[in-house]
C-alpha cells in the first residue's frame, strides 16, 4: 500500500521545467487555460490551515494569469464526499488537483486510478502513485525555532501547548518544541491540553487560560484559530502564531509565527504541469526550500533570544543542525535515540511517542 516512502527532494523540478518551456511551447500556448482544482477541508475563512492553502492558490492565479483557471471546493468532509468532489473536479476538466488534508489520501488515490491523465497532489499524505504526488512541510523546524525562543523568555520553565488531535504531525511538533527549549532551559516542561478539534475558538481560548492558570508562561498551539494568541496576549504571556502571522491579535506578546508558505511549491508544480514536465514526487520541504518561514520577530523579545532563534534557523538551513538529534529520552527517561544519531524521516512521519519533559 505504501509504495514510496523515501522522501526524495524534487530539486530538479524547476530546472527541468525551465528547459522544457521552449519545447512544450505549442501545447502550453494553446488557448485553453490549465484548470487547477483545490480541495479544502475547512472554510477559506478559517485564518489557519485552509486559509494558507488558499493564499497559495491565489498566488498561482497571480503568477500565471489567464494561463490557468483555479477552482476550489471548501469544507469538504473527509469521507465519501471527498471522493465525489475530487472526481467532480477531475471530470470537469481540472488537470491538476491539490487535495489538502491527510484524510483525502484514500479518496485521492481512488479517484486517481480512474483518471490516469489527471495529475494529483496530496498534502501530508504517505501514499504516492504514478499520477499522485505528495508534499508536506517540515513544520517541526519552525517548532524548534519557537522552542528556542520559549526557552529564553520563560521564567517558570512551563510551556502550554493547545493541541488538536494526537496525530504524528502534532506529536512531532510538541517534541521538536520541547527538545529545542530544553537546550536553553534544561528543566523546562510542557503541558499539553487537547481540545479535540482543529477549530473551536472558545475552547482554544479556555484551554489557553487553563494552561496559564497552571503556571505556563509561554503558549503555543497546534489548532487553527487565533484565539489562543488573543488570550495569551491579554494575559501578558508570550505566544506564537500558527500558520499565518497573527501578530495583530496580540501585538505585544506575539513573539513570531510559523508560516505555511505553499505558494512557491504550488507555482512550481503548476508550471511543471503547464510545461508537460510534471511527474510524481514526494517532497518534504522546510526552511531551506521556503515552505516554512518565520514571521518577523517581536521587537520586545530579548536580543539573545532572537539571536539564538536565528542561529537555530540558519543551522537547520545549512544542515548542521537537525532538531531531532540524540541523545533523546522518552517520557519515562529511557534513551530512545543515541547521542549523535537523528530520527529518520519515516520515523518522524509516524511519530507516536513523546520525549522527556512532555506531559500529555
Amino acid at each position, binding site marked *: 500500500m505504501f509504495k514510496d516512502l523515501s522522501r526524495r527532494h524534487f530539486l530538479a523540478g524547476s530546472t527541468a521545467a525551465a528547459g522544457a518551456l521552449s519545447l512544450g511551447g505549442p501545447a502550453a500556448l494553446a488557448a485553453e487555460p490549465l484548470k487547477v482544482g483545490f480541495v479544502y477541508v475547512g472554510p477559506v475563512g478559517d485564518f489557519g490551515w485552509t486559509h494558507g492553502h488558499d493564499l497559495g492558490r491565489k498566488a498561482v492565479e497571480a503568477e500565471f494569469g489567464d494561463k490557468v483557471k483555479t477552482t476550489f471546493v471548501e469544507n469538504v468532509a473527509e469521507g465519501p464526499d471527498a471522493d465525489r468532489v475530487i472526481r467532480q473536479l477531475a471530470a470537469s476538466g481540472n488537470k491538476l488537483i491539490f487535495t489538502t488534508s491527510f484524510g483525502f489520501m484514500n479518496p485521492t488515490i481512488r479517484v486517481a486510478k480512474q483518471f490516469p491523465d489527471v495529475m494529483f497532489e496530496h498534502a501530508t499524505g504517505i501514499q504516492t502513485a504514478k499520477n499522485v504526488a505528495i508534499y508536506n512541510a517540515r513544520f517541526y523546524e519552525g517548532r524548534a525555532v519557537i522552542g528556542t525562543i520559549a526557552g529564553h523568555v520563560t521564567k517558570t520553565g512551563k510551556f502550554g501547548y493547545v493541541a488538536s488531535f494526537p496525530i504524528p504531525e502534532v506529536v512531532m511538533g510538541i517534541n521538536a518544541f520541547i527538545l529545542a527549549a530544553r537546550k536553553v532551559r534544561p528543566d523546562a516542561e510542557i503541558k499539553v491540553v487537547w481540545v479535540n478539534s482543529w*477549530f473551536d475558538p*472558545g*475552547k482554544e481560548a479556555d484551554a489557553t487560560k487553563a494552561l496559564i492558570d497552571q503556571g505556563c508562561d509561554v503558549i503555543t498551539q497546534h489548532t487553527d484559530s487565533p484565539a489562543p494568541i*488573543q488570550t495569551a496576549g491579554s494575559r501578558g504571556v508570550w505566544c506564537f502564531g500558527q500558520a499565518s502571522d497573527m501578530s495583530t491579535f496580540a501585538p505585544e506578546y506575539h513573539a513570531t509565527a510559523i508560516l505555511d508558505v505553499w505558494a512557491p511549491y504550488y507555482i512550481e508544480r503548476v508550471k511543471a504541469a503547464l510545461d508537460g514536465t510534471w511527474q510524481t514526487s514526494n517532497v518534504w520541504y522546510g526552511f531551506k526550500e521556503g515552505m516554512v518561514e518565520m514571521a518577523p520577530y517581536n521587537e520586545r523579545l530579548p536580543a539573545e533570544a532572537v539571536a539564538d532563534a536565528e542561529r537555530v534557523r540558519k543551522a537547520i538551513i545549512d544542515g548542521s543542525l537537525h532538531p531531532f538529534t540524540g541523545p533523546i529520552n522518552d517520557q519515562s527517561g529511557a534513551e530512545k535515540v543515541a547521542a549523535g544519531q537523528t530520527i529518520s524521516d519515516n520515523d518522524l512521519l509516524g511519530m507516536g511517542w513523546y520525549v522527556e519533559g512532555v506531559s500529555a
Partner: protein
Amino acid sequence: MSLEVVALIILTVISAATPLLFAALGELVTEKSGVLNLGVEGMMILGAVAAFAVAVTTGSSSLGVLVGALAGMAMAFVFGVLTLTLAANQVATGLALTIFGLGLSSLIGAGFVGIPVPALPKLAIPGVSDLPIIGPLIFGHDVLVYLSLAAVAGVAWFLKKSRRGMILRAVGESDISAHSIGYNVIAVRYGAVLFGGAMAGLGGAFLSLSYTPLWNEGMTAGRGWIALALVVFSSWRPWRLLAGAYLFGGVTIAQLYSQGAGGFGIPAQVMSMLPYLATILVLTIIAAGPWKGRLNAPACLGKPFRPST
C-alpha cells in the same frame, strides 16, 4: 492551588457559560410559549458575525451588540413567519434555519477574517475592581455578563410573577384554551420567538466581541445545540438554567484543567466526554431522585397552532 487561581478558574467558567446562558434563556422563553426553535445555532452565529462586522466598521462595540441581537431577531422572524403564520413544522424549520444561518454568516463575514476588534470594556470600578480575588470575581466582567445574569432574574420574574408571563405560559400549556379566552396565541408566540432570537444573537455577540473577540467561520462550534440541551436540562426553569449553564461550563473547564495537570492517564477524548455524560447523569438524578423534579415541558411544545378565524 491558590485562591487567586480558583478565582481565575471561576472567571473562565463564567465566560464559557455566558454565551450558553444567553442563547438558552431565549430558547427557554420561546419554548415556554409552546414553540420549539432548533435554529439556535444559526441565530447565534448570525448574531456573532453581525455584531463583529458592525463593531469593526463603526468602531462601536455597543452598537455591535445591539445589531447582533437584531440579527438574531431577524432570523427568528423568518422562523416565526414559517412556523407561526404558515404553520410549518417547527423541528424541520429550525434545522433549516441553522443551515441558512451558517451559510449567510460566512458570506457576511468573508471580509472580516483575521481582523481583531477591541474587547468589550470590563466593568471597572476604581478601588473595588482592584481588590484581590473579590475584585475580578465580582467586578471584573464585561457588561454582557451582568446583563446575562440580570436577564435570568428578569425572565424568572416575568414568567412567574407578571401577567404577561402568565399569558405566555398559558399559551404554551394550552393554546386552544388561551385562544378561546381571547388571547392572541400567534402574537404571543411571535413575541417569544423574537425574544429567543435576540438572546441567541446576544450570545453570538458575546462570542465574537468578548469571549474570543474575533470572527472565524463556524465559530459557534455547536454551542447552539448545547444551549438547546440546557433548556431541557433546566426543565424550563430560569434559575436551574443558570445552574446548568455554569455546571456545563464548569465541567468543560475542569477537564481542560485536569488535562493540564497531567490528565491522570485518561485519554483526552474520554475527558472531553465528561460534560455530556455529566449532563445526562445530573438530569437522570433530578428526574429519578426523591424530590422528583417534575419535568414540566410545556404541553404544546412543538405543535403548530392555526386559529381558523
